[in-house]
């Protein structure tokens, strides 16, 4: 019972990667893109004969890091979306529900506001990451009661903490003079000028998170029957919830610190994929990661290569994703409820 979607989605993703690498100010054909990638991987430089000598640099050092980062972040946010919806038992949850985006934004705003540079180009991502993780710890300790965390408590605590942090960000924006535009731009999310360092960092984290989530996917399925049923089926619901919560939050924190805040991917993709694969998380997690990668890469390519000006990708995902989500939501409400 292998799902045909996985094969389809993987092929589609590879196709988008190759095509989008060719797109941009310099048009490079997909065939040439493949040759350049092959030449870099095998070290066989004869493959490059007859090509414009700028192309390998453009493909390998400029475009591919950005393209792969956006795909990995798209996958990471979508997996986190599946997990957050699953553990909070709330189809409206997304990677940012627990205030993680607000925490990251606050951390980044502080770094930008204080003009901190002692960590080099990683100053802002590191501050964003610390903000996200700090928020997670605060939300979790706020919502645990009698050593148990109910999903309602988690969501409520997330909203409270996020509200406080948003006020803090507004305050920083108000106080900032010329940095205010940098802060605003960071908050909207972007993949511009990513490097291979960011590709490998996010790849390692998202891949590890993916494997952990897949490992507990069946437990997560059963936890949607409620804790009492899950416990009587031999699952330590509390422990699994904690592991997945930390894993998904960590993935989100890494993604946000690399790219800024990109909304809607983590909300829409799991919904959309549930439509195709059903609710089984063992199929939903791989399908969502591939679809999320494709979608965010597609959106980033549109802003990078198609639109005359580069719109922040976070704005674009919300602008495309929002109405699209309204559409599927209506279709499903009219044509029989499934979620």
């Amino acid at each position: 019972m292998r799902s045909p979607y996985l094969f389809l989605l993987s092929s589609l993703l590879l196709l988008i990667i190759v095509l989008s690498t060719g797109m941009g100010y310099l048009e490079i054909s997909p065939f040439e893109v493949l040759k350049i990638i092959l030449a870099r991987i095998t070290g066989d430089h004869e493959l490059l004969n007859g090509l414009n000598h700028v192309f390998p640099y453009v493909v390998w050092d400029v475009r591919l890091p950005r393209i792969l980062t956006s795909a990995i972040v798209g996958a990471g946010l979508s997996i986190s979306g599946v997990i957050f919806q699953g553990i909070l038992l709330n189809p409206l949850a997304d990677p940012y529900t627990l205030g993680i985006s607000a925490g990251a934004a606050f951390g980044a705003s502080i770094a930008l506001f204080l003009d901190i540079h002692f960590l080099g180009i990683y100053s802002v991502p590191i501050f964003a990451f610390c903000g996200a993780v700090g928020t997670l710890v605060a939300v979790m300790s706020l919502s645990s009661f009698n050593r148990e965390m109910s999903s309602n408590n988690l969501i409520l605590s997330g909203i409270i903490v996020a509200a406080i942090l948003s006020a803090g960000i507004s305050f920083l924006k108000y106080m900032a003079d010329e940095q205010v535009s940098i802060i605003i731009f960071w908050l909207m999310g972007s993949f511009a000028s990513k490097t291979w360092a960011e590709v490998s960092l996010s790849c390692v984290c998202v891949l590890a998170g993916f494997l952990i989530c897949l490992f507990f996917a069946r437990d997560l399925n059963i936890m949607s029957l409620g804790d009492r049923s899950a416990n009587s089926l031999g699952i330590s619901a509390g422990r699994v919830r904690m592991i997945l919560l930390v894993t998904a939050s960590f993935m989100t924190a890494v993604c946000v610190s690399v790219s800024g805040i990109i909304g809607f991917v983590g909300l829409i993709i799991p919904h959309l994929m549930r439509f195709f694969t059903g609710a089984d998380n063992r199929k939903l997690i791989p399908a969502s990661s591939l679809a999320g990668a494709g979608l965010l890469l597609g959106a980033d390519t549109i802003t990078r290569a198609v639109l005359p000006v580069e719109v922040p990708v976070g704005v674009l995902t919300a602008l495309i994703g929002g109405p699209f989500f309204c559409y599927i939501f209506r279709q499903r409400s009219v044509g029989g409820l499934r979620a």
Partner: protein
Amino acid sequence: MHRIPVFEANRLHFSYGRQKVLDNISLTLEAGNFYAIVGPNGCGKTTLLDIMAGNKTPESGNIRYFGRNIKEYGKRKLAREIALVPQDFYIHFPFTVGEVILMGRHPYIPRLGGPSKEDIDIAEAIIEKTGLYKLKDKYITELSGGEKQRVVFARALVQDTPVLILDEATSNMDIQYTLNFLRAVSKAVSQAGRTVISALHDLNLAATFSNKMVFMKSGRIVSEGNTHGVLTEEGIKAVFNVESRVYFDQYSNSCQVSYKGIGPR
């Protein structure tokens, strides 16, 4: 013949914050019986059942399952011994009925493996037996409350355990399915020596199917024993504070309870 009891609860205490829910409960349950646990709302039935299922740990006291402290059993091992049908049956995501029922085999399926032929056969047999065949490929989120409860009940039967704990497990079903399920499990008690422990609000259903009864009130056990011995007018008055008549009913072949009505208009 001396047999080790299924459950021996020894001075259990439990409270939520300052509110005492179980107050010094000691109870011995023997295998091969259908126990009905009855008592008013909030008397601690659900908490007691959760402790028996290993879902909650008592604050003090201990509970033994077949002679061994229940904490010594691993969670998976326990899940092959005791199944629980909870009161609530809200399922949050659009799984199919077949998928939910197969989840009952979880304790038997290795983590990185799929269900075996045996797992699927058992699930299929229960689906057939419980009349869920037509609903098999439907989404659980599309079903009515009573239908969902049948799926949740069937899920526990698929777990195929010697002990079945029912917490108001038929509260939303129509009378046909209520009787089907309760008959099926009491057959498993009388023929296969399994044990059913069921919290029930309907005293007549409890009287029809159980052979042992436990009356609870305010976290304590008021009386326990054979159903026909414990189910008395005085007992019902003491626990529920209602007047009733208890009589032996030929048709149901059990004691039945009737309450004062207001007469025809």
